[in-house]
């Protein structure tokens, strides 16, 4: 037997251990420990067990990837296009679709009727769908919620600025970020958008007004080139990094792209110095007077608390945390994540180091959205109609050589279906979608909605 890993040694297993062996070994070791008198021993065993399960999932994907694609895989491509088998009347997908279509038509009516901009009408429409008989089935409810998330993540449509607020409240996304994070890539994107929205709401009044006015200006000026003021363009440039997920839900994507281009052009022409200083980040003059404003300078002892920076001494704990590694693409390019960091850190770093990311982008081009989509189109995967899988989401760390050839694929987040993960990994291994000079290391997430959206 080869040298084993510490977590396997703890479980008394070798590197050839399978799922049943790991569970059995954990059960055996667990029975030797008194959880109350030996909490440390328990936590250490639990940790070994959880790492072993992850290691196993990882090993399986690596094995699957190293196998050549099976020849029969390409034999029946039409299967991909054929709809899933005719479902029974209590099929959760059908139930969810029914409710979703009904919801879409009711919000369409709201959008057409301009007077119905009130949140209460949207809330009533969403609540009516949720209360509908067809969504009593819990699986159907989850699918329905995932579709709403997807709808929002797909970019702004008329009324989405209201739907975003209403859905966040009615579906409890605001209060429970786990809930939305579990809805795949779209969910992760919306979770960040909510964080950004809440950050906006915790700003002092003058900053909120400035931002609100900017949003209105952007919305009403889809073609800013030569029209928008220099101050607005610079402010947009400053804010778009911090709020880009939120903006892309409440503002049309083409408009955002136009503003982005116009701002870049303006900066190249005249630099970043504003004609009139942009005030929104200035500390209010009464700084420190009231610590309850949630936005004040430091006044020593009584102010709430500080910043979290690192999760200490627990590299191993980090490995076991279920981190969300997907970033949704801003208009032009896909951002990269730093693997192995907790979500909390990512959110912070997202706020802090956008500038670093864009500097990186000038040296090595990250893969474009189009390239990543090309990979997605090549994925051959047929979901098992017998399984209810919902939204599948898998994340990989990908490594390229100088020629853009994929030399390593590592799964960092497994979906619920091994077959899907295998299919994506296989495609990544054999793709030639990335041109030479593409960034050497990046993370990528793909998701798949079984049952068809």
């Amino acid at each position: 037997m080869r040298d084993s890993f510490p977590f396997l040694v703890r479980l008394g297993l070798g590197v050839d251990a399978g799922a049943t062996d790991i569970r059995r070994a954990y059960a055996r070791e667990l029975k030797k420990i008194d959880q109350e008198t030996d909490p440390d021993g328990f936590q250490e065993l639990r940790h070994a067990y959880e790492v072993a399960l992850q290691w196993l999932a990882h090993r399986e994907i690596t094995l699957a990837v190293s196998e050549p694609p099976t020849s029969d895989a390409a034999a029946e491509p039409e299967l991909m296009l054929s709809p899933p088998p005719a479902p029974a009347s209590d099929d959760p997908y059908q139930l969810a679709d029914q409710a979703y279509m009904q919801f879409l038509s009711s919000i369409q009516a709201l959008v057409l009727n301009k007077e119905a901009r009130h949140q209460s009408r949207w809330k009533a429409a969403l609540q009516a769908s949720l209360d509908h008989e067809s969504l009593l089935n819990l699986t159907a409810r989850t699918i329905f919620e995932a579709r709403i998330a997807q709808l929002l993540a797909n970019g702004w449509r008329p009324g989405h600025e209201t739907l975003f607020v209403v859905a966040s409240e009615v579906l409890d996304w605001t209060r429970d970020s786990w809930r939305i994070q579990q809805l795949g890539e779209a969910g992760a994107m919306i979770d960040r958008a909510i964080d950004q929205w809440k950050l906006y709401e915790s700003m002092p009044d003058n900053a909120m007004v400035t931002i609100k006015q900017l949003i209105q200006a952007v919305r009403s000026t889809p073609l800013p080139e030569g029209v928008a003021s220099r101050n607005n363009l610079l402010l947009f440039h400053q804010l778009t990094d911090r709020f880009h997920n939120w903006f892309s839900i409440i503002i049309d994507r083409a408009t955002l792209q136009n503003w982005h281009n116009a701002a870049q052009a303006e900066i190249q022409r005249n630099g970043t110095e504003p004609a009139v200083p942009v005030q929104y980040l200035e500390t209010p003059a009464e700084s420190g007077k009231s610590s309850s404003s949630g936005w004040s300078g430091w006044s020593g002892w009584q102010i709430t608390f500080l910043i979290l920076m690192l999760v200490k001494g627990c590299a191993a704990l980090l490995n076991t945390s279920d981190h969300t590694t997907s970033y949704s693409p801003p208009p032009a390019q896909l951002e990269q994540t730093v693997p192995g960091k907790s979500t909390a850190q990512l959110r912070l770093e997202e706020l802090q180091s956008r500038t670093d990311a864009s500097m990186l982008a000038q040296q090595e081009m990250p893969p474009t959205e189009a390239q990543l989509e090309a990979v997605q189109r090549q994925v051959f995967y047929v979901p098992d109609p017998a399984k209810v899988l919902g939204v599948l989401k898998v994340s990989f760390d990908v490594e390229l050589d100088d020629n853009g050839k994929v030399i390593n694929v590592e799964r960092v987040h497994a979906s619920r279906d091994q077959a899907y993960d295998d299919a994506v990994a296989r495609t990544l291994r054999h793709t030639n979608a990335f041109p030479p000079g593409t960034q050497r290391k990046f993370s990528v997430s793909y998701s798949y909605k079984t049952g068809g959206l």
Partner: protein
Amino acid sequence: MIVGIDLGTTNSLIAVWHNGEPRLIPNSLGEFLTPSCVSVDEDGTILIGKAARERLQTHPTSSAAVFKRHMGSNKLFTLGGRHFRAEELSALILRALKEDAEAALGQPITEAIITVPAYFSDAQRKATRAAGQLAGLKVERLLNEPTAAALAYGIHKRGQETQFLVFDLGGGTFDVSVLDLFEGVMEVRASAGDNFLGGEDFVNLLIEEFFKQASIPVELKQDGRFMQSLVAQVEQAKRKLSEAPEALLQIYHAGTTYSMPLDEAALERITAPLLARLRSPVERALRDANLQTANLDNIVLAGGATRMPIVRRMVARMFGRFPSCDLNPDEVVALGAAVQAGLKMNDAALDEVVMTDVAPYSLGVEVSMYLGGDQYSHGHFDPVIERNTVVPVSKVKNYHPTSERQTGLRINVFQGEARMARDNIALGSIEVPISQIPGQNNGVDVRFTYDANGLLQVEATVLRTKETHTLVIEGNPGMLSQEEIKERFAALSELKIHPRDRIEFRTMLARGERLYQQLRGEAREHLGRQIMQFERALEAQDARISREAARIFNEALEYFEHQSFLNLDS
């Protein structure tokens, strides 16, 4: 000997692990369910259980019920001029249960496993443990109710591999747990719940509706006696609806009879807002466990409120199938507590069984977020222990001051899932003085330790000086200190509980008084005479005479109970 106790909102039970299986212990009336009610009798003795429940209607100012809902709070209940905290009333229930067990087992009982709703907060758990201490019991373990139900269920399936969900709707709380059973390991994968949703809420909604529909004068809501008999009427009707298609709610007051017909459809319409609230904890537990309804092998029902057909139908619709009904939902939690007692005593029959539980909510601290420049956004919540982490667990995170001028850190500890700290439940705070040296590590390690009982300990260590501070819960008056517990234990011990051997007759008398209050006219006079005769027979203090009189009196009670329910106006 360790006993297992289900200290419920409506009813409480006690059980032991005996000869390789859990067994319920009957109270002095021969019943397993002891109503969680306390009443102070005219002579100052304490009545527990059924007699106290009857007296809720006849003596509302010297009786109390549903106090579990106020565990961990500062609310005082006044019974016969004496003030009690929820812990103390619970302690009296525990004391009665303990005496039942001592009588049945013939040995003193000093240790217990007590169950609590999985979603009970830190303060509520500590209050429950204090109640145990006040009853003279060492609480060996606080066990989550759905986990207890799962133990009772799983003990019969220990050789199998199975995934199931426990749906526990009790009198006052709602809990959901998803479990995985393999190789004798019973692993709670996720728990979720609602601390303010239970059978009592269904009763309250029906009462509201009754007031509206039958135009009962609103002032009557202040009338303790009227309200308590209304509660009893509604409860009876609710229970009747579990067997019959319809029931009639009826109550008499000051010359008027108020009535409201009730059937399944009406019940469903009236309680729709409550039924809707059952969904979200189930959804959350399933999502947290990363499972779909189709992956569950079974749904185990616990808690008396799951007997209601409308609740069962709701469960069936949510899961697309009918739940398992082979365990008595009233008893399953107490049985599970006894299994845990068996585990705790290392019983040989349970050698191959082990259970792990989770923290049902996230625990963390308030932090500020760095925005660039010297700007911070305050009031964000940073979880240290994420919800559904397997317990016991201990985790450390490192925090830094935001300013070099800062001379101290206040670590505010919260429980909850919201992004902003203010939307979560504040548990307390630690103040840590720091003296900063530029370029040095001025951080603080914050360690959260969550034990198997669901109790939290927070410790902050200043990295530079290695000085350690422990969380002192401040501004949380809902908790007794060890000193206060000692004091109150002494005071409570002086209270006389009505003797066990005479409780049966006392309960019958209480029931007679309640019926007397409910009846009118000839029936009332007749019952009055029966009560007097029975009291006189008891005065003779002859066991044979008492027994015979009790038999006759009981028949009369049954007759009048039936009468009063069929037609109050006869």
